[in-house]
C-alpha cells in the first residue's frame, strides 16, 4: 500500500480570491484514517489556514459534510484508503454560498428548518398528561427513521431542485417536519402542512431521489416528501368537499 496520498482541497478566501482554487497537499496514508483526519493533519502540520467544520468525529454532529470526489460525504466516516491511489478532491457542499474554503453558509437551511416547526406542538387547551406521555414501540417506529436526521445537509447538496430553485423547502426540513407529524404526542400537523403544501414546499420536488441516496443516516427524505404530497392532496380534497369543516 502506498504510504502517501494527495488531497486537492478547494480554497476560497473572500478577502483575496474572486474564484475558489484547489491546493494540493500530500498526507501520510495511515490505515483507518478518514478524510477528516487528513484535513486535520493538513491544518496542524502543513497549512494552518485551511478552514473546515467538524466536531464529533463519529457521524453524529453532522458538521463535517463535504463533497469528496464529487459525492456528498461525512468526512469523519470516509476512509482515505477507499480513494487509492488518489488524488482525493475535497470541496464544500454544493448550492450553499461558500464563506471560506470548505465552510458554507447554512443560514438558508436554518431558516427553513425553523419554518417547519420541528418540535412537538400541542393544541392550546389540550389536556396535559399527569405523567410523561406513553408511547408504544409501534408509535415510536412510525417516526423513528426520520428522527435520525442529523442536519448535515448532504441532501440539500445532492438535490438539483434546490440548486435550481433555492426557495424549495428541501429534503431534511421535510423529513423533520414529517417526523413530528408522525409523533403520537404531536398535534401540529395542520400548521406544518400550511408551510409544506405551498408552492415552494413539497410540490417543487420532482422525485430524483438523490437526497435519500446520500443520506448517511438512511432517513429517506424523498419518501417523506412524497408522503407529504399525499397528505396535502387529501387535505385539499377534504377542504373541497367539506369547506371549513370535517377536520
Amino acid at each position, binding site marked *: 500500500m502506498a504510504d502517501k496520498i494527495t488531497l486537492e482541497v478547494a480554497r476560497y478566501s473572500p478577502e483575496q480570491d474572486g474564484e475558489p482554487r484547489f491546493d494540493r497537499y500530500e498526507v501520510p496514508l495511515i490505515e483507518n484514517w478518514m478524510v477528516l483526519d487528513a484535513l486535520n493533519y493538513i491544518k496542524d502540520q502543513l497549512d494552518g489556514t485551511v478552514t473546515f467544520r467538524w466536531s464529533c468525529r463519529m457521524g453524529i454532529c453532522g458538521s463535517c459534510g463535504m463533497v469528496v470526489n464529487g459525492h456528498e460525504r461525512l468526512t469523519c466516516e470516509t476512509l482515505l484508503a477507499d480513494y487509492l491511489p488518489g488524488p482525493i478532491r475535497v470541496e464544500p457542499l454544493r448550492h450553499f*454560498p*461558500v*464563506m471560506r474554503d470548505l465552510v458554507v453558509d447554512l443560514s438558508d437551511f436554518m431558516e427553513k428548518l425553523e419554518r417547519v416547526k420541528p418540535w412537538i406542538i400541542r393544541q392550546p387547551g389540550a389536556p396535559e398528561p399527569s405523567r410523561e406521555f406513553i408511547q408504544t414501540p409501534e408509535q415510536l417506529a412510525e417516526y423513528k427513521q426520520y428522527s435520525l436526521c442529523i442536519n448535515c445537509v448532504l441532501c440539500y447538496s445532492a438535490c*438539483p431542485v434546490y440548486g435550481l430553485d433555492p426557495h424549495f423547502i428541501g429534503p431534511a426540513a421535510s423529513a423533520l417536519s414529517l417526523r413530528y407529524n408522525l409523533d403520537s404526542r404531536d398535534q401540529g400537523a395542520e400548521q406544518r402542512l400550511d408551510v409544506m403544501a405551498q408552492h415552494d414546499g413539497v410540490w417543487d420536488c420532482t*422525485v*430524483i431521489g438523490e437526497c*435519500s441516496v446520500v443520506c448517511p443516516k438512511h432517513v429517506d427524505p424523498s419518501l417523506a416528501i412524497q*408522503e407529504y404530497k399525499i397528505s396535502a392532496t387529501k387535505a385539499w380534497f377534504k377542504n373541497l368537499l367539506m369547506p371549513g369543516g370535517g377536520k
Partner: protein
Amino acid sequence: MPSAVPRYRPYERRMPLLWWLQRWNYTWFILRELSSAFVAWWVVVTLIQIASILEGPQAYAAFQAWMAQPLLIIVNIVSFIFILFHTLSWFRLVPQAMLPRIGGKRTSAVMTGAPMYVVWAVASVVVACFALGVF
C-alpha cells in the same frame, strides 16, 4: 457606529449547464421527463388511429400506409423504447414514493413494487394474445 471589520461576500455558485450528466440518478430523471414527450406522441397516434377506424375502412387503410413510412417506423421504435423506459421508471419510483400500510404495518418496497410488474405482465400477455389472434 460603522464596523471596523470589513464584511466579505461569500462565493455564490451556479449550477453547471450539464448538471444532469454528473450522476446517473440525475440523468435517469432527465430521461424520465423526456420520455413523457414520447408518451404524448403515442397518445396522438392512438387518437388518430381511433378517428380513422371510426371514419371507415378506407381511412384506416390510409392510416396504415402512413404508419408504414420508414421515418414513422423509426420514430415509433424510439417511442416504444422510451415508453418502456417511462413505465419502468415509474414502477421503480412507486416504492420510493409511498409504502402503504397493510393491517397497520408498512409494506416493504418489494411488496409495493411487485404487484405492478405482475399486472403489467398479465396485461401484456392478454394484449399479445389478442394481437396474435389466440382469442
